[in-house]
């Protein structure tokens, strides 16, 4: 069976918990938020998977790129809580220099010696010749697994249903663990998350300007930007305006539905043996059985599974975002927004 696993889901589906508990498994390398940052919050997905072969130096540019959106969030002190690199202290990389994508979360999640590991990876990748992006990613993840003495790697990035089509193209033999959570709770949690707020702001600005303002200086259509969005251009970014900008949960509900529907279309193409869908809520209510089920899918032959289950079971905590705390009107709007996503999941016999 494949020792390459992706945990996929919508934003705020609870998959961070999976990365955190897998990090304690002796046979599993837990790669956290790798594709979140390499795609600059999912806005540069095609760029992270170039169609042509590239050499090691070009691949290193993708992996270690200092990307504009994630780094402007560091500058304005609105970083996502998933960022583990200590960019506020006077370290090698900080908000002024920008933090390379792989260093934002992925490497600090693995080791306290993340800067040294960064250099080691650089040397390994730089020595590589021309290859497809898929081959480079295989080599990188494989090298990291070997480096840490693990036999399996599990990559998990928040909201990675958006990238599942690329992942399946690049890793056709990988296994996909799909975590689903009640869309209304996902939406409420996304509303409180700076990363997803940034993504929705960028969607709006990109559509009005006809370019990604963090990747292009072209401002030909800037007069079309409403006043409320001017503060989110890189040249006039305001952290205070960002914090004050309010997007209601129902928009995230629409986003959740869209991601579910598009993601399920791809999951339908993946052989049943290569995928497992788990409801986040069952991790909370039936923790032991659900975690056991999950680790059997990830690492069926590991003798460490039982001990690992015992060790991590107490770290499963109930989250705070609960959609029923919203007022009646917003609950109703959120229900409507999530209805298409629920309908798509019901066809796969997943219900709440």
């Amino acid at each position, binding site marked *: 069976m494949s020792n390459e696993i992706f945990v996929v889901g919508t934003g705020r589906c609870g998959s961070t918990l999976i990365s955190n508990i897998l990090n304690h498994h002796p046979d599993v390398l837990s790669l956290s938020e790798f594709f979140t940052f390499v795609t600059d919050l999912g806005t540069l997905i095609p760029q992270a998977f170039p169609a042509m072969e590239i050499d090691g130096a070009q691949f290193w540019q993708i992996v270690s790129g200092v990307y504009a959106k994630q780094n402007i969030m560091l500058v304005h002190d609105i970083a996502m809580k998933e960022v583990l690199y200590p960019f506020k202290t006077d370290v090698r990389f900080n908000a002024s220099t920008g933090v390379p994508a792989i260093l934002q979360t992925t490497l600090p999640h693995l080791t306290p010696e993340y800067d040294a590991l960064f250099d080691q990876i650089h040397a390994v990748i730089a020595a590589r010749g021309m290859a497809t992006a898929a081959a480079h990613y295989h080599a990188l993840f494989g090298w990291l697994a070997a480096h840490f003495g693990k036999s399996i790697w599990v990559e998990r990035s928040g909201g990675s249903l958006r990238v599942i089509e690329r992942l399946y193209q690049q890793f056709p033999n990988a296994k996909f663990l799909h975590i689903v959570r009640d869309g209304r709770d996902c939406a409420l949690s996304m509303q409180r998350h700076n990363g997803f707020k940034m993504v929705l702001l960028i969607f709006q600005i990109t559509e009005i300007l006809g370019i990604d303002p963090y990747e292009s200086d072209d401002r030909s259509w800037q007069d079309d930007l409403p006043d409320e969005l001017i503060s989110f251009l890189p040249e006039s970014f305001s952290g205070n305006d960002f914090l004050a900008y309010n997007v209601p949960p129902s928009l995230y509900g*629409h*986003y959740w539905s869209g991601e579910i*529907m598009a993601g399920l279309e791809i999951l339908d193409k993946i052989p049943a043996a290569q995928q497992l869908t788990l409801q986040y809520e069952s991790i909370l209510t039936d923790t032991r059985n659900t975690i056991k089920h999950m680790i059997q899918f990830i690492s069926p032959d590991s003798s460490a599974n039982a001990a690992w289950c015992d060790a991590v079971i107490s770290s499963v905590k109930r989250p705070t975002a609960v959609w029923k705390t919203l007022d009646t009107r917003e609950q109703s709007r959120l229900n409507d927004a999530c209805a298409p996503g629920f309908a798509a999941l019901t066809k796969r016999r997943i219900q709440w």
Partner: protein
Amino acid sequence: MSEKIVITGGTGFVGTHLILELLEQSDAELFCLVRAKNTSAEQRLHQQLAHVIQGSGYALELINQVKKRCHAIAADLQGDITSLATSIPSGVSQFWHCAASLNYEERFAAEIYDINVEGTRKALALARALNVDCLNYVSTAYVAGRNTGVILESTMTEVQSSNVYESSKVKAEQLIYAQQDMKYRIFRPSIVIGHSHTYQAINFSGMYGFLRRLIQFKGMMARVQRGYLERESIRMNVDPDVPINLVPVDKVAKQAIAIARSDSNDTIFHLTNRTVPTVGEALKVLFSIVGLPPPKIVQDTTQYAWIDEKFNEKIEFYKSYLTGYKQFDRSASNAALGEHFNTARYAVTTNNLNEYCGWYCAQLTKTRSQVPVSR
């Protein structure tokens, strides 16, 4: 000796067409106040006029007349223009003030005021210094703001404007009413759209701005959820049965020139259109051309979902076109034009509105880049 005419805003939508009509209908020499940008004022003016000639069905020979009779004077309404009196020959009979900012977002408020109000004050001072016989000012029918019912061709004093653009045009008109040095005419076009035969437009505010916002909103939602707006109609609280007064730019120019050449003693003229679609019909065309189902018209905004609220916020500027019955009185215009002005060729129907919008969508496709949805 040929007549001398000064024009501001000669590279703008109405301004270019006025110049071409003047060139066609008279042997006047035109002195055009034009901003120099990347190219000289003269190059900008001549290029823009050539572009309109080629795209709007004017005889190509008019390009030679442009070169011969259109003199560009580098000027910026946000700077000093009164001193330009010395660069313009004496004996100017008419002054056409067409320059304006068509922006409306609050962040442009100071600039809008500067160009539309202070610019008009400066234009008046220059006209005075040139001792012109008559100042012609291109305003907008929407100085009427939120007024409904019959909108007379009369001065606008007490009015509740819908936005900073409209209020700037009211203030500019008031400056003109207040001066007593020269004769004036105020022309109030409604929503100016492209040429009645070729559909060409060179300014993309008004109906085009609405269409663009619709396209942008569809694109935003496609990034959030593919196909959402194709399945779910946007709700709008507008008046579907009121007419939306769209007027082709060539009609505006021809009527303005014809009125200026008439012996009318009236001072305010509505340059509106007789045959126009209703708001409901127009919205159906606009939504259809961008691939969306027609909006669902609702009686009050409490029926809005958040997405409806967001869309309606984005098109707030256009609400004064879409709500409230306005019947623009045309007594003065019609009297000046007489019975013979052919208005049938300028009718805007749902059929040709589709062509106007299609022309613009094709332009947008050619000129505007688009970032594919990242997946």
